[in-house]
């Protein structure tokens, strides 16, 4: 019998799983139920959409609808009947499954502030999570002068950067003393705040918000230090919470997320969970890379392509990359055993801190123009040994990589030095040729063939001939 696989959620995790199942082929009937009315889209690009650089079609992801995959957007699941192996939708549909995958993602947290009803936030107050949120923010941003962002975590800063790129004056309010405190140390956060200030983003740190008031003209945010900030728009970025309501109602084990094992199975063998809604080994990741890794494992298992596939949690890399900001953070910034390398150039907005233990990178913060960022991420990701010369980790290939030395005086060049790579002609060979009677560049070239290949040593050859013609006698080692 054809196995019926139902995926609840058409976000980054659910749509990816459908694609992975499709790619592996096999005899499956896959149904994807997405509550949002849109095609699958790339949440990572929403801040770019906020910045106005791209349009909505540009965030759409590839879909496999039609190819054995039944994709139903705008379809909200209301209940899971595990005994009957059936999913109920708001439209009254009953969909049978042999295997069910929860990819319900997470919801934006609306903080419990006076004036803020989580079920019905005021018009000018918008969380930043979905494409619809993005549309609402953009609708208010149009013609606006000033925006506030509550929450100085990764997503909040991306939203702030996006709105600043549209020309808005943006303020970020963050309750703790430094930005992105889960990923950054105090020094790094300070450099980041400086970078943001240069981009038109003001930060209000170590100050909780106490109340929100909004009307048709604007929004006011009251702070614990007695200040009140006003703006045309308030974006909420106060974290996310795994969307586990269906799982709870279905009687699955749920802590912060739906508990899954290394096969991403819940307590029910017929039900898996992936992405933001899943909790594996005590961790709810909230990032794309692990969600996609989980999708691969589930696809491998359900199709039988790789029956031994297991998910292993790997420490994540946080990457904030927007025009003018380049930040990579990995591992625990709080420290730990081992050596520590630091480099700071606050004027240029550059900061680097790396922790090495047992010849492996255990944590890193790279902010600003760090040429080694790709190398550092790979070393951390793959657990590979760090370079013997630690400076290479901070300064990149400038150290240790010899670029062709600029031609110093020909007199100082050793005779064995190769001048023409294409024809393996050494300086000594050119000198001997001169001593044997060749007195012009053309004569030297035609006898030695130097410079007749790629031609890039021509200047060096001319320089050596010029030098030879100004010195009386040149010794050369045979």
């Amino acid at each position, binding site marked *: 019998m054809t196995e019926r696989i139902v995926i609840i959620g058409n976000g980054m995790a659910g749509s990816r799983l459908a694609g992975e199942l499709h790619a592996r082929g096999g005899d499956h009937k896959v149904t994807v139920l997405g509550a949002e009315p849109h095609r699958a*889209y*790339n949440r*990572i*690009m929403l801040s*770019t959409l906020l910045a106005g*650089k*791209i349009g909505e*079609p*540009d*965030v*759409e*992801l*590839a*879909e496999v609808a039609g190819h054995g995959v039944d994709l139903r957007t705008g379809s909200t699941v209301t209940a899971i009947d595990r005994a009957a192996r059936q999913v109920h939708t708001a439209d009254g549909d009953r969909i049978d499954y042999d295997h069910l995958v929860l990819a319900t993602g997470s919801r934006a947290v609306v903080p419990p502030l006076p004036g803020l009803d989580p079920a019905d936030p005021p018009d000018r107050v918008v969380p930043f999570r979905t494409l619809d949120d993005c549309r609402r923010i953009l609708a208010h941003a149009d013609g606006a002068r000033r925006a506030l962002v509550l929450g100085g975590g990764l997503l909040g800063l991306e939203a702030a950067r996006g709105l600043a790129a549209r020309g808005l004056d943006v303020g970020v309010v963050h309750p703790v003393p430094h930005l992105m405190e889960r990923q950054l140390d105090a020094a790094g956060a300070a450099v980041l705040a400086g970078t943001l200030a240069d981009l038109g983003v003001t930060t209000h740190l170590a100050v909780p918000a106490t109340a929100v008031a909004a009307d048709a003209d604007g929004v006011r945010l009251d702070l614990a230090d007695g200040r009140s900030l006003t703006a045309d728009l308030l974006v909420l970025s106060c974290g996310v919470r795994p969307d586990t309501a269906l799982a709870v109602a279905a009687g699955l084990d749920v802590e912060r997320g739906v508990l899954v094992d290394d096969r991403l199975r819940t307590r029910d063998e017929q039900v898996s969970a992936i992405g933001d809604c899943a909790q594996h080994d005590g961790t709810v990741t909230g990032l*794309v*890379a692990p969600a996609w890794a989980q999708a691969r494992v589930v696809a491998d298992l359900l199709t039988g392509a790789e029956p031994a596939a297991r998910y292993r949690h790997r420490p994540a*890399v946080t*990457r904030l*990359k927007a025009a003018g900001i*380049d930040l990579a953070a990995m591992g625990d910034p709080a420290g730990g055993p081992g050596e520590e390398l630091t480099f700071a150039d606050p004027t240029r907005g550059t900061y680097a801190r790396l922790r090495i233990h047992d010849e492996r990178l255990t944590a890193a913060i790279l902010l600003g*123009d*760090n*040429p*080694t*960022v*790709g*190398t550092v*991420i*790979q070393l951390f*990701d*793959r657990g*590979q*040994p760090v*370079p*013997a010369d630690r400076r290479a980790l901070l300064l990149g*290939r400038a150290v*240790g*990589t*010899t*670029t*062709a030395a600029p031609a110093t005086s020909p007199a100082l060049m050793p005779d064995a030095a190769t001048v023409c*790579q*294409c*024809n*393996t002609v050494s300086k000594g060979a050119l000198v001997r040729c001169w001593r044997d009677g060749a007195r012009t560049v053309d004569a030297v070239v035609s006898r030695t*063939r130097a410079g*007749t*290949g*790629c*031609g*890039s040593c021509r200047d060096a050859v001319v320089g050596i001939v010029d030098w030879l013609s100004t010195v009386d006698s040149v010794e050369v080692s045979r």
Partner: protein
Amino acid sequence: MTDGVRSTTRPGQRPREVATHCPYCALQCGMTLRTDGAAVTVAPRQFPTNRGGLCQKGWTAAELLDHPERLTTPLLRDPATGELRPATWDAVLARITDGVRAAQRGHGRDAVAVFGGGGLTNEKAYALGKFARVALRTRHIDYNGRFCMSSAAAAGMRAFGVDRGLPFPLADLGRADTLLLVGANPAETMPPLVRWLTEQRERGGKLIVVDPRVTATARLADLHLQPLPGTDLAVANALLHVALTEGWVDKEYVDARTTGFEAVRRNVAGWWPARAEALSGVPVADLEATARALGTAGRAIILTARGAEQHAKGVDTVTGFVNLALALGLPGRPGSGYGCLTGQGNGQGGREHGQKADQLPGYRKIDDPAARAHVAGVWGVPADELPGPGVPAYQLLDALGTDGGPRALLVFGSNPVVSAPRAARVESRLRDLDLLVVADFLLSETAALADVVLPTAQWAEEDGTMTNLEGRVLRRTALRPPPAGVRTDLEILAALAERLGGPAARQRFPTDPATVFGELRRASAGGLADYAGISWERVETSDGAFWPCPDADGPDSPRMFTDRFATPDGLARFHPVEHRPAAEEVCARYPLHFTTGRVLAQYQSGTQTRRVAALRRAAPEAFVELHPDLAHRLGVGDGEPVRVVSRRGEFRAPARLSPAIRPDTVFAPFHWGGAARANSVTNDAVDPVSGMPEFKICAVRVEKV
């Protein structure tokens, strides 16, 4: 010499000086050969590709003409002693004929296979394909070009409807504002091409090189991206992602000249640069700078070569860069476009006229009834007698001597014992054959295994044409006749045809290259690679002629795609492509990535260049390039011997310490055989579309010897 039909192509009077081209790479530098009756000397010649340049390989090419190791008599393996001994042409041709008949009698026509080379002239490549299909009537023919640019060829075919390495003249490189080289190291593989790069940079252009090593070419670049081997496709998709988000996609061009963009747009939406950064190690900032340089340039060119192509996902990787080029509106615009740097001397022509398992002359498909009818008409045989498609090179080599596989193999101009992946396996397949015949002018490692070795003419001893990396058809001109006892490949094919099929069969295989070229023109007429309007005279008087060129009186095609692509509707095709891991990933037992490549002073399997004294001095032996950090961990000093081990075998060579390579990757050149054979460890996983083996990445460990 009963079969010794001496060619009429040899001029009655020995010329003292001829204009010809270098015998080595696809740049086909113009050179002048001179002889005083004894020694032959080489001089560079002004030609639009090399502009008077010549590398050491070209300068010393004539040394092999009268080399002491030159084969001048056929060799036959003595069944009693197992040794190769000189024999008469009559004896070796009889041995081949008997072997072919025995194999085909016992196991059917496909029991005999032919393996060609990308160094053969157009005339010889054409004749070889015809010989396989008409004289042997086997479907099994393929060639070492499969190991060269087959991935780029397949990607070009599916995107543009045609495959010509560069669809524009080389001179365009000098005028590009941005030039992106992906997995190409011309400073070592075709040095005179660097003259164009120099011109490009002197005009203020930007050169960007993608290579896991800091190669001689990478040192010339304004920006060098140093990805982990096997991640170029992720880089390509991320570059297009950036171009999309920054608004550099040429929407007008995409709408007017292409189809399929939507699917690619949605696919690369999933390739934000930080994702490619984690896979490849190329910083996001560098990806953005590269996309900007390409996306905002007036004229931009993207070139791929073996580094991007020799993978089990080579076709998709090239397609990723073709997608990028199309999205930016480059192909068909003057001074812009996508191209592939073909490697072998006649890699381009060699794939157009019938050496490929699935193709007939003119780049026709062998399973296309109209193509079969046309070519069968030119050959004077019934179309239904032509065999169907065979299998790609590695699959063919892998099947030799196995149950149901070919029992006899004829090799022309190739040395798979050194150049094929997982070479020990290939060597064992060759040993299991009932008959191995190798035509060569030196005793290559493959020839040393043969039952019969046929001494052939060298480049300075034959007339014909070559088609260079631009699709420019060039004239190769004989300076002198071959030594006594040596025959040309055309003469060998004619003699075998006669012995197998009598005088009527002999008539089908003229030995005069000019006659063969005339037939090739007719066979290619109307095909994608149409040579009908190209004559030797035209080639000689106008610095070559670019195909397609259907009419003798009409123009040739230096620049393609200006108005339309070679697809049925004239539009280029986008194809969404996904990165996937290498066929073999590193693990605890094999923790290092291994990649292969070339050095300046050697060429391909080294059969020729290893025998030239000056080149041997410049590059005397194989080596294993290691980062000093890795060497330190292994306890290996510079110059000390190491053993490189993969699941398929091992080789030994001295370590060469260099910070030019990533610490997680090991490099070795593949020009050497024996214990230093790098291909002993390479992976025989192949691309599902092109059949290209995964030469450029596998998992190894390195041991101190």
